[in-house]
Protein backbone atom coordinates (compact mmCIF):
# COMPACT_ATOMS: atom_id res chain seq x y z
CA UNK A 1 0.00 0.00 0.00
CA UNK A 2 2.76 2.44 1.00
CA UNK A 3 4.95 1.91 -2.00
CA UNK A 4 1.91 2.00 -4.20
CA UNK A 5 0.91 5.38 -2.78
CA UNK A 6 4.42 6.69 -3.21
CA UNK A 7 4.28 5.85 -6.88
CA UNK A 8 1.03 7.78 -7.39
CA UNK A 9 1.39 11.38 -6.23
CA UNK A 10 -2.19 12.24 -7.23
CA UNK A 11 -3.61 9.39 -5.22
CA UNK A 12 -1.39 10.25 -2.30
CA UNK A 13 -2.66 13.80 -2.44
CA UNK A 14 -6.28 12.64 -2.37
CA UNK A 15 -5.73 10.16 0.45
CA UNK A 16 -3.85 12.74 2.48
CA UNK A 17 -6.58 15.30 2.05
CA UNK A 18 -9.30 12.79 2.86
CA UNK A 19 -7.57 11.85 6.12
CA UNK A 20 -7.26 15.49 7.03
CA UNK A 21 -10.94 16.16 6.39
CA UNK A 22 -12.00 13.16 8.46
CA UNK A 23 -10.06 14.70 11.36
CA UNK A 24 -11.70 18.07 10.76
CA UNK A 25 -15.06 16.37 10.66
CA UNK A 26 -14.57 14.94 14.13
CA UNK A 27 -13.58 18.32 15.51
CA UNK A 28 -16.66 19.84 13.87
CA UNK A 29 -18.88 17.16 15.40
CA UNK A 30 -17.36 17.81 18.81
CA UNK A 31 -17.89 21.56 18.43
CA UNK A 32 -21.45 20.88 17.38
CA UNK A 33 -21.97 18.72 20.44
CA UNK A 34 -20.30 20.93 23.04
CA UNK A 35 -21.45 24.43 22.10
CA UNK A 36 -25.23 23.98 22.52
CA UNK A 37 -24.59 22.30 25.90
CA UNK A 38 -22.61 25.23 27.28
CA UNK A 39 -25.72 26.98 28.49
CA UNK A 40 -27.92 25.52 31.18
CA UNK A 41 -31.00 25.11 29.01
CA UNK A 42 -32.09 21.48 28.86
CA UNK A 43 -34.49 20.04 26.28
CA UNK A 44 -36.39 18.00 28.86
CA UNK A 45 -37.04 21.00 31.09
CA UNK A 46 -38.32 22.91 28.09
CA UNK A 47 -40.64 20.14 26.98
CA UNK A 48 -41.86 19.70 30.55
CA UNK A 49 -42.48 23.42 30.96
CA UNK A 50 -44.87 23.20 28.05
CA UNK A 51 -46.53 19.97 29.19
CA UNK A 52 -46.70 20.57 32.93
CA UNK A 53 -49.83 22.74 32.99
CA UNK A 54 -52.21 19.87 32.30
CA UNK A 55 -50.46 16.94 34.01
CA UNK A 56 -50.68 15.61 37.57
CA UNK A 57 -47.35 15.00 39.34
CA UNK A 58 -47.13 11.21 38.73
CA UNK A 59 -47.78 11.40 34.99
CA UNK A 60 -45.50 14.41 34.84
CA UNK A 61 -42.64 12.40 36.38
CA UNK A 62 -43.25 9.49 34.04
CA UNK A 63 -43.35 11.84 31.10
CA UNK A 64 -40.14 13.52 32.25
CA UNK A 65 -38.38 10.16 32.53
CA UNK A 66 -39.56 9.18 29.08
CA UNK A 67 -38.11 12.41 27.70
CA UNK A 68 -34.87 11.93 29.64
CA UNK A 69 -34.52 8.47 28.12
CA UNK A 70 -35.41 9.79 24.66
CA UNK A 71 -32.69 12.45 24.74
CA UNK A 72 -30.17 9.99 26.18
CA UNK A 73 -29.74 11.86 29.46
CA UNK A 74 -30.34 8.81 31.72
CA UNK A 75 -29.13 5.21 31.54
CA UNK A 76 -31.56 2.79 29.95
CA UNK A 77 -31.40 -1.03 30.04
CA UNK A 78 -31.80 -3.23 26.97
CA UNK A 79 -35.56 -3.37 27.31
CA UNK A 80 -35.77 0.43 27.23
CA UNK A 81 -36.64 0.86 30.91
CA UNK A 82 -34.94 3.59 32.94
CA UNK A 83 -32.24 2.29 35.31
CA UNK A 84 -32.65 3.59 38.87
CA UNK A 85 -30.23 4.04 41.76
CA UNK A 86 -30.90 3.00 45.37
CA UNK A 87 -33.04 6.08 46.04
CA UNK A 88 -35.21 5.28 43.03
CA UNK A 89 -33.90 8.20 40.97
CA UNK A 90 -32.86 7.73 37.35
CA UNK A 91 -29.08 7.47 36.83
CA UNK A 92 -27.91 10.38 34.66
CA UNK A 93 -25.45 9.64 31.86
CA UNK A 94 -22.03 11.28 31.73
CA UNK A 95 -21.14 13.85 29.09
CA UNK A 96 -18.62 11.57 27.30
CA UNK A 97 -21.16 8.76 27.03
CA UNK A 98 -23.72 11.26 25.71
CA UNK A 99 -21.14 12.29 23.16
CA UNK A 100 -20.55 8.70 22.02
CA UNK A 101 -24.29 8.19 21.70
CA UNK A 102 -24.59 11.41 19.72
CA UNK A 103 -21.80 10.39 17.33
CA UNK A 104 -23.10 6.89 16.72
CA UNK A 105 -26.68 8.08 16.19
CA UNK A 106 -25.58 10.92 13.91
CA UNK A 107 -23.50 8.48 11.88
CA UNK A 108 -26.69 6.45 11.33
CA UNK A 109 -28.47 9.59 10.15
CA UNK A 110 -30.54 9.87 13.33
CA UNK A 111 -30.33 13.49 14.42
CA UNK A 112 -32.81 13.20 17.26
CA UNK A 113 -36.21 14.72 17.89
CA UNK A 114 -37.21 18.34 17.54
CA UNK A 115 -38.33 20.04 20.75
CA UNK A 116 -40.50 22.68 19.16
CA UNK A 117 -42.22 20.32 16.74
CA UNK A 118 -42.08 17.30 19.06
CA UNK A 119 -42.38 14.41 18.17
CA UNK A 120 -41.22 15.16 14.60
CA UNK A 121 -37.75 13.88 13.75
CA UNK A 122 -35.02 16.42 12.99
CA UNK A 123 -34.04 14.47 9.88
CA UNK A 124 -37.61 14.69 8.61
CA UNK A 125 -37.73 18.48 9.06
CA UNK A 126 -34.34 18.88 7.38
CA UNK A 127 -35.39 16.59 4.55
CA UNK A 128 -38.32 18.89 3.82
CA UNK A 129 -36.27 22.09 3.95
CA UNK A 130 -33.09 21.03 2.18
CA UNK A 131 -34.40 20.81 -1.41
CA UNK A 132 -35.56 24.43 -1.20
CA UNK A 133 -32.17 25.68 -0.06
CA UNK A 134 -30.33 23.64 -2.69
CA UNK A 135 -32.71 24.75 -5.44
CA UNK A 136 -32.14 28.38 -4.48
CA UNK A 137 -28.43 28.38 -3.74
CA UNK A 138 -26.79 26.01 -6.22
CA UNK A 139 -28.03 27.56 -9.48
CA UNK A 140 -27.47 31.06 -8.12
CA UNK A 141 -23.89 30.40 -7.10
CA UNK A 142 -22.98 28.51 -10.27
CA UNK A 143 -24.56 31.08 -12.60
CA UNK A 144 -23.13 33.97 -10.58
CA UNK A 145 -19.69 32.38 -10.57
CA UNK A 146 -19.67 31.87 -14.35
CA UNK A 147 -21.03 35.33 -15.18
CA UNK A 148 -18.78 37.04 -12.63
CA UNK A 149 -15.64 35.35 -13.89
CA UNK A 150 -16.45 36.15 -17.49
CA UNK A 151 -17.13 39.82 -16.73
CA UNK A 152 -13.99 40.08 -14.57
CA UNK A 153 -11.76 38.59 -17.27
CA UNK A 154 -13.24 40.82 -19.97
CA UNK A 155 -12.83 43.92 -17.78
CA UNK A 156 -9.18 43.11 -17.15
CA UNK A 157 -8.52 42.42 -20.81
CA UNK A 158 -10.37 45.23 -22.55
CA UNK A 159 -9.92 47.87 -19.81
CA UNK A 160 -11.19 51.27 -21.00
CA UNK A 161 -14.80 52.27 -20.57
CA UNK A 162 -15.96 48.71 -19.98
CA UNK A 163 -13.67 48.33 -16.98
CA UNK A 164 -14.33 51.81 -15.63
CA UNK A 165 -18.06 51.16 -15.60
CA UNK A 166 -17.98 47.56 -14.46
CA UNK A 167 -15.39 47.82 -11.69
CA UNK A 168 -17.17 50.36 -9.43
CA UNK A 169 -20.48 48.54 -9.92
CA UNK A 170 -18.89 45.21 -9.03
CA UNK A 171 -17.23 46.80 -5.99
CA UNK A 172 -20.54 48.19 -4.83
CA UNK A 173 -22.49 44.97 -5.33
CA UNK A 174 -19.82 42.87 -3.67
CA UNK A 175 -19.75 45.17 -0.65
CA UNK A 176 -23.52 45.30 -0.12
CA UNK A 177 -24.39 42.96 2.73
CA UNK A 178 -26.74 40.22 1.50
CA UNK A 179 -29.44 41.15 3.96
CA UNK A 180 -29.41 44.84 3.00
CA UNK A 181 -29.99 44.05 -0.66
CA UNK A 182 -32.67 41.54 0.33
CA UNK A 183 -34.57 44.00 2.49
CA UNK A 184 -34.51 46.68 -0.20
CA UNK A 185 -35.65 44.22 -2.89
CA UNK A 186 -38.51 42.97 -0.74
CA UNK A 187 -39.62 46.49 0.02
CA UNK A 188 -39.32 47.95 -3.49
CA UNK A 189 -40.37 45.06 -5.74
CA UNK A 190 -42.39 43.03 -3.31
CA UNK A 191 -44.37 45.56 -1.33
CA UNK A 192 -44.28 48.90 -3.14
CA UNK A 193 -44.41 47.83 -6.80
CA UNK A 194 -45.95 44.40 -6.11
CA UNK A 195 -44.16 42.90 -9.11
CA UNK A 196 -43.20 39.76 -7.23
CA UNK A 197 -44.46 38.14 -4.05
CA UNK A 198 -42.46 39.52 -1.13
CA UNK A 199 -42.26 36.52 1.16
CA UNK A 200 -42.73 32.76 1.04
CA UNK A 201 -41.83 29.98 -1.36
CA UNK A 202 -45.15 29.27 -3.08
CA UNK A 203 -48.81 30.34 -3.01
CA UNK A 204 -50.76 29.61 0.15
CA UNK A 205 -52.85 26.48 -0.01
CA UNK A 206 -50.67 24.80 -2.63
CA UNK A 207 -49.21 21.39 -1.98
CA UNK A 208 -45.54 21.09 -2.97
CA UNK A 209 -45.28 18.67 -5.85
CA UNK A 210 -44.35 18.49 -9.48
CA UNK A 211 -47.56 19.91 -10.91
CA UNK A 212 -47.30 22.68 -13.50
CA UNK A 213 -49.27 25.14 -11.34
CA UNK A 214 -46.97 24.59 -8.39
CA UNK A 215 -43.78 25.02 -10.43
CA UNK A 216 -45.14 28.24 -11.91
CA UNK A 217 -46.05 29.59 -8.50
CA UNK A 218 -42.71 28.58 -6.99
CA UNK A 219 -40.69 30.13 -9.80
CA UNK A 220 -42.61 33.38 -9.35
CA UNK A 221 -41.55 33.43 -5.70
CA UNK A 222 -38.02 32.41 -6.74
CA UNK A 223 -37.15 35.63 -8.57
CA UNK A 224 -36.40 38.06 -5.73
CA UNK A 225 -34.28 35.76 -3.54
CA UNK A 226 -32.45 34.56 -6.68
CA UNK A 227 -31.61 38.10 -7.79
CA UNK A 228 -30.58 39.18 -4.31
CA UNK A 229 -27.96 36.43 -4.08
CA UNK A 230 -26.91 36.50 -7.74
CA UNK A 231 -25.98 40.20 -7.77
CA UNK A 232 -23.63 39.74 -4.84
CA UNK A 233 -21.99 36.57 -6.16
CA UNK A 234 -21.38 38.18 -9.56
CA UNK A 235 -19.77 41.22 -7.91
CA UNK A 236 -17.48 39.11 -5.74
CA UNK A 237 -16.34 36.82 -8.52
CA UNK A 238 -15.86 39.64 -11.05
CA UNK A 239 -13.53 41.50 -8.69
CA UNK A 240 -11.52 38.40 -7.85
CA UNK A 241 -11.17 37.39 -11.51
CA UNK A 242 -10.30 40.92 -12.59
CA UNK A 243 -7.32 41.18 -10.27
CA UNK A 244 -6.19 37.63 -11.12
CA UNK A 245 -6.27 38.49 -14.82
CA UNK A 246 -4.43 41.77 -14.33
CA UNK A 247 -1.70 39.75 -12.68
CA UNK A 248 -1.68 37.15 -15.45
CA UNK A 249 -1.55 39.89 -18.11
CA UNK A 250 1.74 41.10 -16.65
CA UNK A 251 3.39 37.68 -16.82
CA UNK A 252 6.04 36.78 -19.35
CA UNK A 253 4.05 34.12 -21.17
CA UNK A 254 1.32 36.59 -22.12
CA UNK A 255 3.86 39.17 -23.29
CA UNK A 256 5.65 36.50 -25.31
CA UNK A 257 2.41 35.26 -26.82
CA UNK A 258 1.57 38.83 -27.82
CA UNK A 259 5.00 39.28 -29.41
CA UNK A 260 4.52 36.09 -31.37
CA UNK A 261 1.30 37.58 -32.68
CA UNK A 262 -0.93 34.82 -31.35
CA UNK A 263 -4.59 35.54 -31.79
CA UNK A 264 -6.12 37.64 -29.03
CA UNK A 265 -8.83 35.13 -28.30
CA UNK A 266 -6.28 32.36 -27.82
CA UNK A 267 -4.25 34.45 -25.36
CA UNK A 268 -7.44 35.21 -23.47
CA UNK A 269 -8.07 31.48 -23.26
CA UNK A 270 -4.57 30.76 -21.90
CA UNK A 271 -4.97 33.52 -19.37
CA UNK A 272 -8.43 32.41 -18.41
CA UNK A 273 -7.22 28.89 -17.68
CA UNK A 274 -4.45 30.06 -15.39
CA UNK A 275 -6.50 32.67 -13.58
CA UNK A 276 -9.28 30.14 -13.13
CA UNK A 277 -7.42 28.05 -10.58
CA UNK A 278 -7.67 30.41 -7.60
CA UNK A 279 -11.24 31.12 -8.66
CA UNK A 280 -12.06 27.46 -8.05
CA UNK A 281 -11.13 28.06 -4.45
CA UNK A 282 -13.43 31.06 -4.65
CA UNK A 283 -16.20 28.69 -5.69
CA UNK A 284 -15.59 26.61 -2.57
CA UNK A 285 -15.70 29.73 -0.46
CA UNK A 286 -18.96 30.75 -2.11
CA UNK A 287 -20.39 27.32 -1.38
CA UNK A 288 -19.20 27.63 2.19
CA UNK A 289 -20.69 31.09 2.47
CA UNK A 290 -23.90 29.70 1.02
CA UNK A 291 -24.82 28.75 4.56
CA UNK A 292 -24.65 32.24 5.99
CA UNK A 293 -26.17 33.69 2.86
CA UNK A 294 -28.97 31.13 2.91
CA UNK A 295 -29.79 31.84 6.52
CA UNK A 296 -30.20 35.56 6.16
CA UNK A 297 -31.74 35.54 2.71
CA UNK A 298 -34.27 32.88 3.62
CA UNK A 299 -35.12 34.72 6.80
CA UNK A 300 -35.85 37.95 4.94
CA UNK A 301 -37.86 36.25 2.21
CA UNK A 302 -39.42 33.70 4.59
CA UNK A 303 -38.21 31.10 2.08
CA UNK A 304 -39.05 27.60 3.31
CA UNK A 305 -35.46 26.28 3.32
CA UNK A 306 -32.84 25.26 5.81
CA UNK A 307 -32.16 28.85 6.85
CA UNK A 308 -35.74 29.38 7.91
CA UNK A 309 -35.67 26.05 9.76
CA UNK A 310 -32.59 27.19 11.71
CA UNK A 311 -34.20 30.55 12.36
CA UNK A 312 -37.37 29.07 13.86
CA UNK A 313 -35.20 26.65 15.82
CA UNK A 314 -33.16 29.54 17.22
CA UNK A 315 -36.27 31.48 18.18
CA UNK A 316 -37.70 28.45 19.97
CA UNK A 317 -34.40 27.28 21.49
CA UNK A 318 -34.86 23.98 19.66
CA UNK A 319 -31.33 22.63 20.26
CA UNK A 320 -31.62 19.26 18.49
CA UNK A 321 -32.89 21.00 15.36
CA UNK A 322 -30.22 23.73 15.54
CA UNK A 323 -27.35 21.29 15.90
CA UNK A 324 -28.85 18.94 13.32
CA UNK A 325 -28.94 21.74 10.77
CA UNK A 326 -25.50 23.05 11.67
CA UNK A 327 -24.02 19.56 11.46
CA UNK A 328 -25.45 19.06 7.99
CA UNK A 329 -24.21 22.46 6.89
CA UNK A 330 -20.72 21.75 8.22
CA UNK A 331 -20.61 18.41 6.44
CA UNK A 332 -21.62 20.07 3.16
CA UNK A 333 -18.90 22.68 3.56
CA UNK A 334 -16.31 20.02 4.31
CA UNK A 335 -17.33 17.96 1.27
CA UNK A 336 -17.23 21.06 -0.97
CA UNK A 337 -13.78 21.96 0.31
CA UNK A 338 -12.55 18.41 -0.16
CA UNK A 339 -13.79 18.30 -3.75
CA UNK A 340 -12.07 21.58 -4.54
CA UNK A 341 -8.84 20.44 -2.90
CA UNK A 342 -8.86 17.31 -5.02
CA UNK A 343 -9.78 19.22 -8.19
CA UNK A 344 -7.07 21.81 -7.65
CA UNK A 345 -4.58 19.03 -6.96
CA UNK A 346 -5.53 17.32 -10.21
CA UNK A 347 -5.28 20.55 -12.19
CA UNK A 348 -2.15 22.00 -10.63
CA UNK A 349 0.89 19.73 -10.33
CA UNK A 350 2.65 22.27 -8.08
CA UNK A 351 0.10 21.77 -5.29
CA UNK A 352 0.35 17.99 -5.57
CA UNK A 353 4.11 18.21 -5.32
CA UNK A 354 4.10 20.51 -2.31
CA UNK A 355 1.67 18.26 -0.52
CA UNK A 356 3.76 15.20 -1.30
CA UNK A 357 6.90 16.92 -0.05
CA UNK A 358 5.24 17.90 3.20
CA UNK A 359 4.34 14.33 4.03
Amino acid at each position, binding site marked *: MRSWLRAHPTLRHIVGRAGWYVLTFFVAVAVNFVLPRL*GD*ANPVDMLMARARTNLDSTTARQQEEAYLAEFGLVHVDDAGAVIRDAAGKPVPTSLPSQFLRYVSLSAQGDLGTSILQHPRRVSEIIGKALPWTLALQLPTIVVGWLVGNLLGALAAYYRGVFDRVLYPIALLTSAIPAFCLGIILVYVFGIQLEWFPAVGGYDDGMVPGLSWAFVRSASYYYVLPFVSILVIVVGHQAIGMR*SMCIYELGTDYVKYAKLLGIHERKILLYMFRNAMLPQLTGLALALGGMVGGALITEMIFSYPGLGLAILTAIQGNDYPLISGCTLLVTVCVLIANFCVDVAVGLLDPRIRASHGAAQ
Partner: protein
Amino acid sequence: MLKGLFRSPSFAIGCAMFFGTLLIALFGPLVLRVDVEHRVGLAYMQPSARHWLGTDHLGIDMVSLLIKGLRASLYVGFLAGSVATVLGTLIGLYGGYKGGFIDDVLTSVTNLFLVIPTLIVLILLSSSLEEGRSLTLIALLIGCTTWTWTARAVRAQSSSLRTRDHVALARINGFGTGHIVLFHILPYLLSYIFMVFILQTASGILTEASISLLGLGPYDSISLGKILNEAIRNEALGDGAWWAFVPATLLVTVIAFSLYIINTSMESVFNPRLRR
Protein backbone atom coordinates in the same frame (compact mmCIF):
# COMPACT_ATOMS: atom_id res chain seq x y z
CA MET B 1 3.68 55.53 -2.16
CA LEU B 2 1.43 57.39 0.26
CA LYS B 3 1.17 60.19 -2.26
CA GLY B 4 -0.31 57.69 -4.72
CA LEU B 5 -2.79 56.63 -2.08
CA PHE B 6 -3.98 60.16 -1.38
CA ARG B 7 -4.34 60.81 -5.09
CA SER B 8 -6.63 57.81 -5.56
CA PRO B 9 -10.25 58.93 -5.85
CA SER B 10 -11.71 55.73 -4.45
CA PHE B 11 -9.56 56.08 -1.33
CA ALA B 12 -10.85 59.64 -0.84
CA ILE B 13 -14.47 58.58 -1.34
CA GLY B 14 -14.08 55.66 1.04
CA CYS B 15 -12.44 57.79 3.73
CA ALA B 16 -15.05 60.53 3.39
CA MET B 17 -17.87 58.02 3.77
CA PHE B 18 -16.30 56.16 6.65
CA PHE B 19 -15.23 59.21 8.65
CA GLY B 20 -18.65 60.71 8.00
CA THR B 21 -20.32 57.81 9.80
CA LEU B 22 -17.64 57.90 12.49
CA LEU B 23 -18.34 61.60 13.10
CA ILE B 24 -22.07 60.93 13.39
CA ALA B 25 -21.38 58.17 15.89
CA LEU B 26 -18.92 60.22 17.95
CA PHE B 27 -20.55 63.63 17.95
CA GLY B 28 -24.18 62.76 17.28
CA PRO B 29 -25.05 62.47 20.98
CA LEU B 30 -23.40 65.85 21.66
CA VAL B 31 -25.27 67.71 18.94
CA LEU B 32 -28.65 65.99 19.04
CA ARG B 33 -30.76 64.86 21.93
CA VAL B 34 -30.39 61.09 21.95
CA ASP B 35 -33.06 59.33 23.93
CA VAL B 36 -33.88 55.66 23.41
CA GLU B 37 -35.53 55.15 26.79
CA HIS B 38 -38.73 57.11 26.28
CA ARG B 39 -41.55 56.96 23.80
CA VAL B 40 -41.94 60.23 22.01
CA GLY B 41 -44.97 59.37 19.95
CA LEU B 42 -47.06 56.62 18.42
CA ALA B 43 -45.75 53.55 16.63
CA TYR B 44 -44.26 54.11 13.16
CA MET B 45 -44.84 57.86 13.01
CA GLN B 46 -43.86 59.42 9.70
CA PRO B 47 -40.66 61.50 9.53
CA SER B 48 -41.37 65.06 10.67
CA ALA B 49 -39.49 68.23 11.59
CA ARG B 50 -39.40 67.09 15.22
CA HIS B 51 -38.41 63.51 14.51
CA TRP B 52 -36.39 63.50 11.32
CA LEU B 53 -36.74 59.79 10.71
CA GLY B 54 -40.02 59.12 12.50
CA THR B 55 -40.43 56.54 15.23
CA ASP B 56 -40.08 52.78 15.56
CA HIS B 57 -42.74 50.23 16.53
CA LEU B 58 -42.63 51.39 20.15
CA GLY B 59 -42.74 55.09 19.35
CA ILE B 60 -39.05 55.71 20.07
CA ASP B 61 -37.21 58.36 18.04
CA MET B 62 -35.49 56.67 15.07
CA VAL B 63 -32.57 59.13 14.85
CA SER B 64 -31.66 58.37 18.47
CA LEU B 65 -31.87 54.63 17.82
CA LEU B 66 -29.71 54.92 14.71
CA ILE B 67 -26.99 56.92 16.49
CA LYS B 68 -26.92 54.43 19.36
CA GLY B 69 -26.96 51.51 16.93
CA LEU B 70 -24.20 53.02 14.83
CA ARG B 71 -22.00 53.49 17.89
CA ALA B 72 -22.58 49.89 18.96
CA SER B 73 -21.91 48.51 15.48
CA LEU B 74 -18.68 50.47 15.09
CA TYR B 75 -17.60 49.39 18.57
CA VAL B 76 -18.21 45.73 17.73
CA GLY B 77 -16.38 46.15 14.43
CA PHE B 78 -13.28 47.72 15.96
CA LEU B 79 -13.13 45.31 18.88
CA ALA B 80 -13.74 42.18 16.78
CA GLY B 81 -11.37 43.48 14.08
CA SER B 82 -8.63 44.18 16.63
CA VAL B 83 -8.95 40.80 18.32
CA ALA B 84 -9.00 38.93 15.00
CA THR B 85 -6.06 40.91 13.62
CA VAL B 86 -3.88 40.65 16.74
CA LEU B 87 -4.59 36.94 17.28
CA GLY B 88 -4.14 36.06 13.63
CA THR B 89 -1.01 38.16 13.28
CA LEU B 90 0.67 36.73 16.38
CA ILE B 91 -0.14 33.12 15.47
CA GLY B 92 0.79 33.63 11.82
CA LEU B 93 4.03 35.49 12.58
CA TYR B 94 5.18 33.03 15.20
CA GLY B 95 4.34 29.91 13.19
CA GLY B 96 5.79 31.32 9.99
CA TYR B 97 9.03 32.39 11.65
CA LYS B 98 9.53 29.30 13.81
CA GLY B 99 8.71 26.71 11.18
CA GLY B 100 8.98 23.01 11.96
CA PHE B 101 6.69 21.25 14.38
CA ILE B 102 5.15 24.35 16.03
CA ASP B 103 4.36 25.74 12.59
CA ASP B 104 2.74 22.45 11.51
CA VAL B 105 0.55 22.40 14.62
CA LEU B 106 -0.49 26.04 14.28
CA THR B 107 -1.17 25.65 10.56
CA SER B 108 -3.32 22.58 11.14
CA VAL B 109 -5.34 24.32 13.85
CA THR B 110 -5.77 27.36 11.60
CA ASN B 111 -6.87 25.29 8.61
CA LEU B 112 -9.21 23.29 10.79
CA PHE B 113 -11.09 26.31 12.02
CA LEU B 114 -10.92 27.92 8.62
CA VAL B 115 -13.22 25.26 7.16
CA ILE B 116 -15.78 25.17 9.97
CA PRO B 117 -18.26 27.94 9.10
CA THR B 118 -17.87 30.92 11.43
CA LEU B 119 -21.52 31.87 11.40
CA ILE B 120 -22.53 28.38 12.49
CA VAL B 121 -20.16 28.44 15.45
CA LEU B 122 -21.45 31.87 16.40
CA ILE B 123 -25.07 30.74 16.14
CA LEU B 124 -24.41 27.72 18.34
CA LEU B 125 -22.49 29.82 20.86
CA SER B 126 -24.93 32.70 21.01
CA SER B 127 -27.94 30.46 21.31
CA SER B 128 -26.44 28.64 24.27
CA LEU B 129 -25.35 31.90 25.92
CA GLU B 130 -28.93 32.97 26.49
CA GLU B 131 -28.16 35.30 29.41
CA GLY B 132 -24.88 37.26 29.46
CA ARG B 133 -24.89 37.91 25.68
CA SER B 134 -23.42 41.38 25.92
CA LEU B 135 -22.17 43.52 23.05
CA THR B 136 -18.56 43.12 24.18
CA LEU B 137 -18.88 39.34 24.45
CA ILE B 138 -20.34 39.13 20.95
CA ALA B 139 -17.46 41.23 19.62
CA LEU B 140 -14.91 39.00 21.36
CA LEU B 141 -16.60 35.86 20.03
CA ILE B 142 -16.55 37.24 16.49
CA GLY B 143 -12.87 38.13 16.88
CA CYS B 144 -12.04 34.69 18.21
CA THR B 145 -13.72 32.93 15.29
CA THR B 146 -12.45 35.04 12.39
CA TRP B 147 -8.72 35.26 13.11
CA THR B 148 -8.02 32.19 10.98
CA TRP B 149 -7.63 33.73 7.56
CA THR B 150 -5.45 36.51 8.94
CA ALA B 151 -3.21 33.85 10.46
CA ARG B 152 -2.97 31.92 7.22
CA ALA B 153 -2.11 34.99 5.15
CA VAL B 154 0.38 36.39 7.68
CA ARG B 155 2.06 33.00 8.05
CA ALA B 156 2.69 32.81 4.32
CA GLN B 157 4.33 36.25 4.35
CA SER B 158 6.34 35.70 7.49
CA SER B 159 7.72 32.33 6.41
CA SER B 160 9.00 33.95 3.23
CA LEU B 161 10.75 36.61 5.32
CA ARG B 162 12.50 34.24 7.70
CA THR B 163 15.25 33.37 5.27
CA ARG B 164 16.14 37.00 4.57
CA ASP B 165 19.67 38.14 5.41
CA HIS B 166 18.72 40.74 7.98
CA VAL B 167 16.74 38.17 9.95
CA ALA B 168 19.68 35.75 9.89
CA LEU B 169 21.92 38.59 11.04
CA ALA B 170 19.62 39.35 13.94
CA ARG B 171 19.65 35.70 14.90
CA ILE B 172 23.46 35.57 14.82
CA ASN B 173 23.50 38.63 17.07
CA GLY B 174 21.62 36.59 19.64
CA PHE B 175 18.27 38.33 19.61
CA GLY B 176 15.35 36.27 20.92
CA THR B 177 12.41 35.06 18.86
CA GLY B 178 10.10 37.72 20.25
CA HIS B 179 12.50 40.51 19.36
CA ILE B 180 13.13 39.24 15.85
CA VAL B 181 9.46 38.68 15.11
CA LEU B 182 8.43 42.09 16.42
CA PHE B 183 11.28 44.26 15.11
CA HIS B 184 12.61 42.44 12.07
CA ILE B 185 9.60 40.75 10.51
CA LEU B 186 6.51 42.63 11.66
CA PRO B 187 7.55 46.02 10.18
CA TYR B 188 7.57 44.51 6.68
CA LEU B 189 4.00 43.36 7.07
CA LEU B 190 2.52 46.48 8.67
CA SER B 191 0.77 47.86 5.60
CA TYR B 192 -0.61 44.42 4.90
CA ILE B 193 -1.78 43.92 8.46
CA PHE B 194 -3.46 47.31 8.44
CA MET B 195 -5.44 46.31 5.35
CA VAL B 196 -6.39 43.05 7.04
CA PHE B 197 -7.57 45.04 10.05
CA ILE B 198 -9.83 47.16 7.84
CA LEU B 199 -11.37 44.06 6.29
CA GLN B 200 -11.76 42.33 9.65
CA THR B 201 -13.51 45.42 11.02
CA ALA B 202 -15.93 45.44 8.10
CA SER B 203 -16.64 41.74 8.45
CA GLY B 204 -17.05 42.14 12.22
CA ILE B 205 -19.73 44.76 11.69
CA LEU B 206 -21.49 42.61 9.09
CA THR B 207 -21.26 39.47 11.22
CA GLU B 208 -22.75 41.22 14.23
CA ALA B 209 -25.53 42.57 12.03
CA SER B 210 -26.23 39.07 10.70
CA ILE B 211 -26.35 37.53 14.18
CA SER B 212 -28.60 40.30 15.47
CA LEU B 213 -30.81 39.96 12.43
CA LEU B 214 -31.33 36.32 13.36
CA GLY B 215 -32.47 37.42 16.80
CA LEU B 216 -29.25 36.47 18.58
CA GLY B 217 -28.13 40.05 19.18
CA PRO B 218 -26.84 41.68 22.37
CA TYR B 219 -29.29 42.04 25.23
CA ASP B 220 -27.66 45.17 26.65
CA SER B 221 -27.47 47.38 23.61
CA ILE B 222 -29.04 48.49 20.37
CA SER B 223 -27.15 47.77 17.17
CA LEU B 224 -27.91 48.38 13.53
CA GLY B 225 -28.66 44.67 13.06
CA LYS B 226 -31.00 44.71 16.01
CA ILE B 227 -32.90 47.72 14.61
CA LEU B 228 -33.40 45.74 11.39
CA ASN B 229 -34.45 42.65 13.32
CA GLU B 230 -37.05 44.61 15.28
CA ALA B 231 -38.31 46.32 12.13
CA ILE B 232 -38.76 43.01 10.29
CA ARG B 233 -40.32 41.27 13.27
CA ASN B 234 -42.76 44.11 13.80
CA GLU B 235 -44.06 44.28 10.24
CA ALA B 236 -42.33 47.52 9.27
CA LEU B 237 -41.98 46.22 5.69
CA GLY B 238 -45.63 45.35 5.30
CA ASP B 239 -46.71 48.63 6.92
CA GLY B 240 -44.57 50.61 4.50
CA ALA B 241 -42.64 52.20 7.36
CA TRP B 242 -39.47 52.59 5.28
CA TRP B 243 -37.87 54.89 7.86
CA ALA B 244 -37.69 51.98 10.29
CA PHE B 245 -35.30 49.92 8.13
CA VAL B 246 -34.00 51.87 5.11
CA PRO B 247 -31.68 54.22 7.11
CA ALA B 248 -30.20 51.33 9.09
CA THR B 249 -29.74 49.30 5.89
CA LEU B 250 -28.02 52.25 4.21
CA LEU B 251 -25.74 52.85 7.20
CA VAL B 252 -24.55 49.22 7.24
CA THR B 253 -24.01 49.33 3.48
CA VAL B 254 -22.13 52.64 3.63
CA ILE B 255 -19.79 51.38 6.36
CA ALA B 256 -19.10 48.08 4.61
CA PHE B 257 -18.68 49.69 1.20
CA SER B 258 -16.40 52.48 2.45
CA LEU B 259 -14.13 50.03 4.28
CA TYR B 260 -13.97 47.75 1.22
CA ILE B 261 -12.97 50.50 -1.16
CA ILE B 262 -10.41 51.87 1.30
CA ASN B 263 -8.97 48.37 1.37
CA THR B 264 -8.95 47.84 -2.40
CA SER B 265 -7.48 51.28 -3.09
CA MET B 266 -4.71 50.60 -0.56
CA GLU B 267 -4.10 47.21 -2.10
CA SER B 268 -3.74 48.63 -5.58
CA VAL B 269 -1.12 51.07 -4.25
CA PHE B 270 0.81 48.74 -1.94
CA ASN B 271 0.63 45.60 -4.05
CA PRO B 272 2.83 46.12 -7.12
CA ARG B 273 1.38 43.04 -8.79
CA LEU B 274 -1.90 44.84 -9.29
CA ARG B 275 -0.39 47.97 -10.80
CA ARG B 276 -0.46 48.45 -14.54
